[in-house]
C-alpha cells in the first residue's frame, strides 16, 4: 500500500470518529480552562457534560450501517463498539453529575478532564483491532485512572493509587511482551485479520496460549477478574465515590469489549490449541466464588461494593465464555443493567457519605426510617445487583444463565455446567453481603439521631430515573433485547 493511500485512509477515517474528536476537544478545552481567572467547578462540569452529551449524540446519530476498518487497520467501526461506547459515555456523564456539592476540594478542571480521557480511552479500546492501538488506548484509560484514583488527596489514596499503578504498569509490560510473541508467531499486529487467524492456526502450541493469556491479563486487570483483582478494594475505599462508580463500569465494559474481540480471534472457532472456553469459564468461576466469599466479611460499604464489582465482572466474563453472538448480546444487556444499578447504588452511597459521612455498614443503622426515599432507592439498586425481581438485574442474570446452558446443551465444554451452577450459588451467596446494607438500614436501631429530615433533590431525581430504568429493564427487557438482536456481531 502506498503512503498516499494510507494518508488518504487516515483522513477518510476521521469522518467516522466524530465522537472521539469531540472528546479530545473537550479534554483540551478543560486543560486550558484551568488558566481562566476564577475557575469554578460549575464551568468545568458544564464543559465536560456538554462534551459527553455531544459525543453520545454523535455516536447514536452516526450509527454504523456496516463494519469498517479505520486508520490503517487500527480501529474497527461497528455496532458492537458503538453500543459499548454508549454505555461508556453514559457512565462518564453520570460520574460528572455525581457529587454536586462544592464542599469538596477535588472538583478541579483536571478531575473532569481525566474523566473525559478515561471515556476516550475506553471508546478507543472498544474499537481497537490492532495490538498497538489496544495498548495505547488501554494506557490512556489506565494512566488517567491512576491519577483519578488518588483524587481524595490523602495518604491512603496515594498509597492505593500507587499500588494500582505498579500493578497496572507491570501487567502492561507483560501484555506488551505477549503481543510481541503473538506478532512473532503470526507476523501481524492486526488481531481481527485473516492473517492473524491463519498464523495462529498454523502454529498451534502452548506458546500461543501463553502469549494470549499474557495479553488478556492486562484487560482482565481492568475488569478486576480474579486473580487480577487485588487493587479493587483499596482503590474503591480510597477514591472519591463518583470515580469509584466510574471504575465499576467504564474500564470494565471497555475491557470486556477488548476481551470479546481478542478472545474471539484466539478462539479460532473452537479450533485453538487450548480451549479458550475452558480458560475463560474457569476464570469466571474463580472470580464469582472469590468475589462473593470475600465480600461477606467487609465492613466498609465501598470495599463491599469492590468485591461486588469483582463478582459482577465474573458474570460478564461468563457471558463471553459462551463464544456465541447471543452470549455477547447478553453481556451487553448485563453491562447496561450493571451501569444503571451501580450508579444508583453509588449515587445513594455518595449522598449518605457526603451528607453524614457514612462509610461503614454500621453507620447506616436505622437510616431507612430517617430518609425513606434514599433508603428505598439504595435497596432497589442492591436488589438488582443480587438479581432479584422486580429489577433489571434479574433479567440480565437470567439471560446469561440461559445462554450458558443453551451453549452447554449445544455441545459446549462441560465446564459451562459448573459455571452455571457456580453462578447460581454465587447469587445466593451474594444475597448475604448485599443484604447487609438494607439489614442495617431497616432492622437496626439508629445511631445518628442528627441525620434528620433532608430531601436531596438531585439525588432523588437521578435515583428515581435510574430506578425506573431498572424497573423498565425488568418489565420490558424486549426493548433492549430486540435492539441487541438486530446488532451485527460479525467480528
Amino acid at each position, binding site marked *: 500500500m502506498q503512503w498516499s493511500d494510507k494518508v488518504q485512509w487516515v483522513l477518510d477515517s476521521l469522518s467516522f470518529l466524530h465522537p472521539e474528536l469531540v472528546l479530545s476537544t473537550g479534554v483540551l478545552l478543560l486543560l486550558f480552562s484551568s488558566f481562566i481567572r476564577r475557575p469554578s467547578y460549575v464551568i468545568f462540569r458544564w464543559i465536560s457534560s456538554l462534551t459527553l452529551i455531544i459525543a453520545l449524540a454523535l455516536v447514536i446519530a452516526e450509527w454504523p450501517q456496516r463494519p469498517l476498518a479505520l486508520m490503517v487497520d487500527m480501529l474497527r467501526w461497528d455496532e458492537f463498539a458503538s453500543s459499548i461506547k454508549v454505555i461508556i459515555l453514559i457512565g462518564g456523564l453520570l460520574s460528572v453529575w455525581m457529587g454536586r456539592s462544592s464542599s469538596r476540594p477535588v472538583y478541579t478542571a483536571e478531575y473532569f478532564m481525566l474523566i473525559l480521557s478515561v471515556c476516550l480511552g475506553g471508546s478507543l479500546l472498544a474499537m481497537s483491532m490492532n495490538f498497538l492501538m489496544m495498548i495505547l488506548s488501554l494506557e490512556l484509560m489506565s494512566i488517567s485512572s491512576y491519577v483519578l484514583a488518588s483524587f481524595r488527596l490523602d495518604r491512603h489514596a496515594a498509597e492505593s493509587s500507587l499500588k494500582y499503578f505498579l500493578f497496572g504498569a507491570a501487567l502492561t509490560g507483560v501484555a506488551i511482551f505477549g503481543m510481541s510473541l503473538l506478532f512473532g508467531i503470526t507476523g501481524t499486529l492486526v488481531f481481527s485479520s485473516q492473517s492473524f487467524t491463519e498464523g495462529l492456526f498454523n502454529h498451534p502450541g502452548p506458546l500461543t496460549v501463553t502469549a494470549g493469556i499474557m495479553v488478556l491479563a492486562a484487560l482482565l486487570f481492568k475488569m478486576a477478574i480474579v486473580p487480577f483483582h487485588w487493587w479493587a478494594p483499596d482503590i474503591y475505599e480510597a477514591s472519591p465515590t463518583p470515580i469509584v462508580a466510574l471504575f465499576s463500569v467504564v474500564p470494565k465494559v471497555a475491557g470486556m469489549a477488548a476481551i470479546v474481540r481478542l478472545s474471539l480471534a484466539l478462539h479460532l472457532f473452537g479450533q485453538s490449541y487450548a480451549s479458550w472456553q475452558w480458560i475463560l469459564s474457569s476464570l469466571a468461576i474463580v472470580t464469582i466464588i472469590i468475589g462473593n466469599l470475600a465480600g461477606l466479611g467487609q465492613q466498609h460499604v465501598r470495599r463491599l461494593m469492590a468485591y461486588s464489582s469483582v463478582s459482577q465482572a465474573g458474570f460478564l466474563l461468563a457471558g463471553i465464555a459462551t463464544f456465541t453472538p447471543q452470549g455477547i448480546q447478553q453481556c451487553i444487556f448485563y453491562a447496561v443493567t450493571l451501569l444503571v444499578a451501580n450508579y444508583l447504588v453509588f449515587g445513594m452511597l455518595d449522598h449518605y457519605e457526603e451528607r453524614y459521612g457514612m462509610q461503614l455498614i454500621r453507620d447506616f443503622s436505622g437510616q431507612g426510617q430517617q430518609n425513606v426515599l434514599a433508603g428505598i432507592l439504595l435497596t432497589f439498586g442492591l436488589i438488582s445487583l443480587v438479581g432479584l425481581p422486580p429489577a433489571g438485574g434479574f433479567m440480565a442474570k437470567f439471560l446469561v444463565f440461559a445462554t450458558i446452558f443453551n451453549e452447554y446443551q449445544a455441545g459446549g465444554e462441560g465446564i459451562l455446567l459448573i459455571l452455571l451452577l457456580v453462578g447460581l450459588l454465587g447469587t445466593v451467596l451474594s444475597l448475604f453481603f448485599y443484604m447487609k446494607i438494607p439489614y442495617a438500614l431497616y*432492622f437496626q436501631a439508629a445511631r445518628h439521631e442528627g441525620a434528620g429530615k433532608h430531601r436531596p433533590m438531585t439525588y432523588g431525581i437521578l435515583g428515581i430515573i435510574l430506578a425506573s430504568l431498572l424497573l423498565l429493564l425488568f418489565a420490558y427487557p424486549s426493548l433492549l433485547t430486540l435492539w441487541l438482536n438486530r446488532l451485527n456481531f460479525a467480528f
Partner: protein
Amino acid sequence: MGLLSLLILVPVATALVILALPQSRPTFFRLFSLVAVSIQLMILGAGWFRYNPNQTGMQLTEHYPWIEVVLRQGERVHADYLLAVDGMSAPLIALSVVVMFITVVASFKIVNKTKSYFVLLMLLDAAVIGAFSALDLLLFFLFFEFMLLPLYFLVGIWGGPRREYAAVKFFLYTFFGSILILIGIIVIHISFRSPGVADLIHTFNILELQDQSNIIVGSFLDSARAYSWGPLTARMWVFILLFIGFAIKLPSVPFHTWLPDAHVEAPTPVSVVLAALVLKVGAYGIIRFTLPIFPGEAAASSTVLGLFAVISIIYGALNAMASKDFKRLIAYSSVSHMGFVLLGVASFNETGLSGAVFQLVSHGILTTLLFLLAGVLYDRTSDRTISNYSGLSIKMPKYGSIVLVTSMASLGLPAFSGFIAEWLVLTGAFDQTHLPDYVPQWMGFAATFGLLLGAAYFIWTYQRMFLGAFGTTLTTAKDELTDLYSREMVMLVPLVVMTLLLGIFPQTLLQYINTFASAWFNQVSPYLN
C-alpha cells in the same frame, strides 16, 4: 383489562398511593388498604359469576406477549404475560382474597411505621395472587420471588424479639429454594418448544410445558435420549431440584426449619399470610407444573414423596405436642397438615389430588383462624406460653368457644372442612384400584396415626389452657384478659362459618376441584409407567 390483572393491579396501585401519602396519617393507610381488599372482594364476586366450574381447562385468560429474545436465526426465547385460572387456582385465589381482607383488618393493630407496613402488605397481596394466576413459568417465578422481599421486611421489622434471626433464616432458605427452581426452569425452558410453529421457540407457557410431545428431540429432557448425570437421569435431577425448591416453601420435613421461627416471630397478620397463602404457593408449584412436566419421574419416586409426607405429618404433630408456645404449636401443626397435601399428591389418583387441593383451602382457613386466635391472646398479655394459663374459657367464654370449634375443625372432626380434606387424602392413599400402588399401605396407616396425634395435641392444649379453674401465672395479666372485641369477632366468625360450610356442603368447593383433578389426571396418567 381482565379481572385477574385487576386483582393484581389494585393492591399495587394502592401501595403507590399509600407511598405518596404523608407519613403522619396512619388512618389513611388502613383505610386505603381496606378499600383495596374490598375492591378485590368485589372483583372476586364478579369472577365467580364469570367462571364456569364444570368447564375443563383454563378460564378468564389474559394473554399478551412479553419478552422476545432471538438466540440465533429461527430460534427464539419467548415469554408471555399469561394469566388464567382453573379449578385449582380459582379456589386458591378466592382464599387469598378473603384471607387478605382479614389480614388487613387484623393489621389495624400495627401501630409503628404503618406506612411501610401497608405498602409491603399490598405488594405481598399482589405477588401472591399473581403467583396463583400466572400460567407462564417465568411470570410465575417472578411473582414467587417477589413474595420474598416484602415478607423479609414484614417479619424483620414488625416481628417479635428474635425477628432478625427469623427473617434472615426465612430469606436464605427460600432464596436457596428459588435458585434450585431457577435452575430447573432454565433446563425446562431450553428443552421445550412451542408446538405448531416452524421456528424453534423456547416456551415458558405452562400449558405447552405440560405436553411431553413439545420436548425438543435430543434435548436434556428428552426421555429417549436418557441423558444422565451421575447415577440419575437429567430428567430426574431436574425433578429433584424443582421438588426440593418447592418442598422448602411447602414446607416438608427436613426443609421446614425456617417455618417455626418465621411463623412465631412474625406479627399476627403476617403469620396468617405466611401460613395460609405462602405455603400454598409451594404446593401449587408442585401440582401445577413439577408433576405434569415430570410425571414419570414423580411416579417413580412417589414412595419417597409419600415418605416425606408421612414424616412431615408425624414429626410435625410430635413437635406441636411438645411446643410450649401456643404459636409454635400452630406453626408445627401447619407442617403436619401440609404433609397431607404432599401425601394426596404422591398417591397419584383423582381422590388423593382432590383431597390435597381441598386441604390447601381448608388449611388456609383453619390456620388463619388459629393464628388470629393466638394473636388475640398475645395482644392482651404479650405472652403465649401454654403453661401460663388455665381455665381461660371462664374469663373469656366467646374466645374459648371459638378456640374449641377451631381445634375440633383442625383435628379433623366431621362437619368441618379439615375432615373432608383428610378423608379424601386418606382414601386416595389407601386406594388400591389403580395399580401400581404409588404409596404403600403403611403410609396411609401412619398418616391416620398422625391424625390421632393431631387430636391429642389440640385437645390436650385446650384442656390445659381453657379448662379447669381460671388462673394465670402472669401477675399483671389478670385484668387484661378480656373477651373478644367486635373487631375480632368480625374477623373470626366468617372463617368459622366458612369451615363449617365447606364441611357440610363440600360440593361447593369440590365441583371446582373435581373438574381440575380429572383433567390433571387425564393429562398425567399416560406417562405413569
